[in-house]
Structures are given as structure tokens and as C-alpha cells.
């Protein structure tokens, strides 16, 4: 019987088993669907609470406010602060009944300010909750503004201006790299727009970790060492079916599941990245229609189509290679315990090595690095997200990655064809 026919038979059967296995499906798709949803809900809840309080103003009590009239006036003019009236010197009144933050002004506050010295005020809170922290930050920011005013007056009275304090000004920008993927150059001065930032790079470890912990790897175990565990492998081995066809059929199902899970993570990563890049614009705008919001997000996504395409061609051989290696090991393992040991090593080792690669390798690496198995793809994806991946580097990685993927499939088929691996664990 031809390899292609065996491939289709095994593919159909494995796909059917997977689609009926609710537990496997849950562990595959729950992390990329539920976790970002939960994070979004938590973010929206905290954000809405913070916004509500910010609109009403954080309640602030000032003890002996009459000793700092200028500061008090600055607080009174601030929308995010709501001043609570405190009856003077009444020990029965607890300022924290109404206020989140208490500011205590000392006797000599104004004298110290007028004399050009440092005045010390006490800022007290009762708890360490998020809202209190936000209130404290808001109060400190207003104090900072009042301090700027005082500083400016002192500079003027000394015959100086603000520039005297800031002799150097730094103007940041990014230089576009020639022949790179995912870069939007604004042309004239050769500078690049802000591309996807560091935030997006953490999605590769997240995606790989999700694939491994969330069932992708478990799926490989289930289709290989699971056959030994369920004792179904002998029924398979006594048929004239091509072993390579069996391996390819199983690998294809795992591959589709892996790609689906990783794609979800990647899309979420790109969406979050666009949101993080667009957030200053979105926050600055007075009011936005949904169309305007989407327009800003689309512009902030950079060259999304190019980025996604490059990501797909980088990640497909990468997934096939990882699946092939895992399948080769699982086919050799006598039982789930042996296979799990390797899986735990992968679960710990892969995300760690991805993070090390992303953060420890220099920003510019030589071209042969892109051809190194595993690490080459990590570096390529890192560079893709930081808009520094050249077309040559992409081609090197894709061609070598495809070679490693083919070798990994070959390895899995070879191990699956060997008596010493298939008969381990037979009862």
C-alpha cells in the first residue's frame, strides 16, 4: 500500500480522535483563549476603577493647609484630587475615614520655602492597596508640579532660566536598516517608525511554552507513546502499512494543532503590540469613534501583513522540527513516565533558552547564526519584531530551518521503524 494512502488513513483517524477528545482540545486551546481574556477583564476592571476614582478625584486630607497656601491652591486646581475638609485640631476625627492620603504641613513650611531651603512635608497612607498607591502617585505628581513652580521662581530671582538646569537635550529616533522585513521607513531622513517593541518578543516564549505545557507536546505523546500505553501499537504494527506514512499522518495532525495554538498566541501578541504602540495616541485623544480607534491601531501595527507572513514562514519549519524531535523521543520511550521526563526537560529548557537567546545575544549577529538549529529561528524572530531582520538572514533561516524540519521528520520515521524503539514497553 502506498505511503500516501497510509498517510491519509492515519491522518483522518488521528484527527477524529483529537476532535472527539475534549480534554486534549481544552488543554490545547484554553490557554491562548482564556488567559488573555482573563488578563483583559482584569485590566478593564482595574482601569475602570482607577478611571472612576480619577474622575471623582482622589480624596486628600491636608493637615494645617493654611501653612502652605500656594501648595493648597495647586491641589485645589487639580481635577484628579479632591480635598477633604478637616476640622482643625480635633483628635476624635480620623482623616482616613474620608481620605486615602494625608498630607501634614509643618510650622516652618513657608519660611523654609521663602528662605530658599528644603521644606519637609509628611505624606501618610493607611494601607498599601492599588487605589491608595494611585492616589499617592497623583498627590506626588501635584507636589512635583508645585516644586517646579518654586524652582522656576528661585531660578528667576537668581537671574537664571530653566535651560541653565538642562544643558543637554536628547532627541530619540530609530535608523532604518536597508532590506529589512517589517520596517516602515518615513523616508526623508532615513529614520524608521516605531516598529513592534520588546513587548511582542515575549510572545514567542509564551507561544512555545503554551504549546508545550498546554497540550501540543502532550498530543505527540498521546499519538506515539500513548499507542504503547493503550497497547494499540501491535495492532498497527501487524498491518502492512508504511511506518513512514504512519509517522507523517500523526505528525500532520500535531502540526495543525500546534500551528493553530501558536497562531492564536501570535495574533494576540500582534494585537497587544499594536495596542501598546498606539496607547499614547489613544490616551491623548479627547474622544474617538470606533473607526478612528481602529485606524490608529492599524497604523500602529506597522507592516502587519509582511510581519505575519515572515513569522509564518519562520515558525512553520520550527514547529515541524520541534514536533519531529519530540515524536522521535516519544516513539522510543517505553511509557509515559519516560516520555514525560523528556517533556519536562523541554518545558523547562526551551522557554529558558528562548529568553536567554532574546536577551543575551547582541543586537547584530553574523549571518551564519541564523542557520544554527533552534537558536537561529529565535534570533530571526527577535530581529523580526525589532525590525532588523534582513531578507538574507530570513532566507538563510528558512532554508536551514526547512532542512532541520525534514531531518527531524526523518529521525522520527527512522526511530518509529526500529524494533528497539517500538518494542520497548510491550507487555
Amino acid at each position, binding site marked *: *500500500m502506498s505511503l500516501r*494512502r*497510509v498517510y491519509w*488513513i492515519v491522518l483522518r*483517524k488521528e484527527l*477524529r*480522535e483529537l476532535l*472527539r*477528545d475534549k480534554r486534549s482540545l481544552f488543554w490545547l486551546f484554553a490557554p491562548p483563549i482564556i488567559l488573555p481574556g482573563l488578563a483583559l477583564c482584569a485590566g478593564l476592571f482595574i482601569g475602570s476603577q482607577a478611571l472612576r476614582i480619577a474622575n471623582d478625584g482622589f480624596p486628600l486630607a491636608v493637615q494645617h493647609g493654611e501653612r502652605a497656601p500656594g501648595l493648597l491652591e495647586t491641589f485645589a486646581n487639580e481635577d484628579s484630587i479632591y480635598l477633604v475638609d478637616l476640622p482643625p485640631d480635633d483628635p476624635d476625627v480620623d482623616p482616613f475615614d474620608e481620605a486615602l492620603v494625608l498630607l501634614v504641613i509643618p510650622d516652618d513650611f513657608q519660611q523654609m520655602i521663602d528662605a530658599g531651603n528644603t521644606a519637609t512635608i509628611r505624606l501618610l497612607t493607611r494601607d498599601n492597596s492599588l487605589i491608595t498607591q494611585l492616589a499617592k502617585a497623583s498627590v506626588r505628581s501635584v507636589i512635583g508640579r508645585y516644586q517646579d513652580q518654586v524652582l522656576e521662581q528661585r531660578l528667576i530671582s537668581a537671574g537664571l532660566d530653566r535651560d541653565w538646569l538642562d544643558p543637554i537635550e536628547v532627541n530619540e529616533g530609530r535608523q532604518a536598516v536597508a532590506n529589512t522585513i517589517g520596517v516602515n521607513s518615513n523616508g526623508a531622513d532615513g529614520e524608521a517608525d516605531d516598529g513592534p517593541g520588546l513587548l511582542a518578543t515575549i510572545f514567542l516564549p509564551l507561544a512555545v511554552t503554551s504549546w508545550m505545557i498546554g497540550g501540543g507536546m502532550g498530543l505527540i505523546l498521546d499519538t506515539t507513546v500513548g499507542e504503547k500505553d*493503550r*497497547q*494499540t501499537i*501491535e*495492532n*498497527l*504494527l*501487524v*498491518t*502492512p*502499512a508504511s511506518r513512514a506514512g504512519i509517522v507523517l499522518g500523526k505528525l500532520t495532525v500535531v502540526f495543525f494543532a500546534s500551528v493553530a495554538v501558536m497562531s492564536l498566541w501570535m495574533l494576540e501578541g500582534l494585537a497587544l503590540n499594536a495596542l501598546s504602540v498606539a496607547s499614547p495616541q489613544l490616551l491623548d485623544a479627547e474622544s474617538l469613534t470606533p473607526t478612528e480607534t481602529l485606524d490608529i491601531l492599524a497604523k500602529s501595527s506597522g507592516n502587519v501583513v509582511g510581519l505575519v507572513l515572515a513569522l509564518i514562514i519562520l515558525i512553520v519549519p520550527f514547529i515541524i522540527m520541534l514536533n519531529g524531535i519530540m515524536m522521535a523521543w516519544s516513539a522510543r520511550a517505553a511509557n509515559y*513516565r519516560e516520555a514525560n521526563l523528556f517533556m519536562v526537560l523541554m518545558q523547562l529548557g526551551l522557554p529558558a533558552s528562548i529568553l536567554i537567546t532574546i536577551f543575551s545575544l547582541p543586537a547584530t549577529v553574523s549571518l551564519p547564526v541564523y542557520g544554527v538549529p533552534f537558536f537561529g529561528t529565535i534570533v530571526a524572530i527577535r530581529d523580526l519584531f525589532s525590525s532588523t531582520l534582513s531578507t538574507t538572514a530570513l532566507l538563510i533561516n528558512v532554508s536551514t530551518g526547512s532542512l532541520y524540519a525534514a531531518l527531524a521528520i526523518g529521525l522520527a520515521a527512522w526511530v518509529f521503524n526500529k*524494533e528497539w524503539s*517500538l*518494542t520497548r514497553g*510491550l*507487555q
Partner: protein
Amino acid sequence: MIETFQLAKRFKKFEAVKDVTFRAEAGEVFGLLGPNGAGKTTTLRMLATVLSPSSGTATVSGYDIRTQANAVRAHLGILVESAGLYSHSTTREHLRYVGNLHGLNGSGLERRIDELIEVLDMGDFADRIGQGFSRGMIRKVVMGMALVHDPPNIILDEPTQGLDVVSTRTVRDLIRQFKAEGRCVILSTHIMDEVERLCDRVAIVHRGEILEKGTPQELIAKYQADNLETAFVEIIGAEALLNEAQREAEREAQQQKSGRRS
């Protein structure tokens, strides 16, 4: 017809099967008897091309297990002693899957599946998924998988294990039917009564070697025994059987211990 020629299998230093030679004819039920660990299952796995022999060879319907493995697989059906099922496939899908892997499809295969479901009395669970099947139900489905391609040679390793009385009678009738149809059947079982009733000839295997061969009646007469079981104990040796039983008990205890640990 199945024929072995000095078949041997070595696992590192352990010789599981030593120079096993026998011939099972078409239309014959040939019994392979021996205590646990005698080398029966290893011999059957070599015949089914799951294991390759260290030396010697065998033929199934004239095809060599070493050089014509695919032809051997197409002419042989094997019921594996410990075989299991896929959790999310139905009985019918199991039979169809194995049938497809044997190159069968279409209405011919569907008719064969219906026939097996009726013969093996699997109608009640033909469209149920394998999860939660009893041991007896699993044995029936696995037997169906071994027979789906209608092989001329059939190896049955403990075929009635876990079956109820009615199912056991069905399987025994089926074995007689195979014989009547001119198929070659190799039967491996611990139930001596079953062997006496069904087997035309038997081989007694111990520590990888064939100690005796012949019809059950010949062996009973040779060892002046009342029945095959007594003759079997005489051949193997009561002490050897006790030792084997003890080793088996220790092995099971060890497995349970490691199972608890995991």
C-alpha cells in the same frame, strides 16, 4: 500454513527463544503451550513480524518473515494477548481503520465489518467509542481487527481471556469454523481443557525451547497421564512450574509497587 526453522530470539544476553521448529498446516489448529515467560509470545511476535528473529526464520503461506514482511502481514491475523483500543473511536471505526491499513475499502469492507459485528456479537456496542469497554468487549473488538482482512493464517494469543461463558463458546465455535474453512490457526492458551478440545497438535514450550510435540492424545499416552494438564506438568516439571509461578508473583508485585510509585 506456518512453518518455523530453528527460530531464535536473543535480547542482549537473554535467550528468549531457542531453535524453535514446527509446522502448522492449513486446516489445522496448532496449540503452543507453556508457562509464563516460556517464549510463546516472543515466538508469535516474530511470526507476526513485530520482532525480527536473531537467527533462523519462518514462513507464513510461503512468505518469509525476514524478507517478505508485508506479504506475511497481509496473510496473517493476530489477536494480541494484551491489545487495547483507542478511547475515542467506535468498534466499527476500529475495524474500518485496520481494514483500511490492510488496503481494504468500500462496500466490501463495510460488509465484512457487519459480518464480524454479527459473528462476534458486537451489535450492542458497534457504534460506541472504546472508552469504558469491559475486558470482554475489548477482546472481541481486537479479535475483529485481527480478522477484518480475512487472513488464511490466524494466531490467537489467549483468545478467551476475560470473556463470559457465552462469548467463550462463540470464540471456540469460531476457531472450529476457521479449521473447517481450511485456515491455519495457532492457539496459545493456558486453558488445557480448551487445548484438548480444539487443538489437533500441540507444542510444549519451556524456557524458549520446544520440549514436546504431538497430538494431545499422543502426549497423554506418552506420559501415562489422565489428561493433558497432567501430561503438561510432567513435561515441564512440577518444580519448574512452581518456580515460574513464584517468579510471576514477584514480577506482578514489583509492577504493582512501581505502579503505586508512579
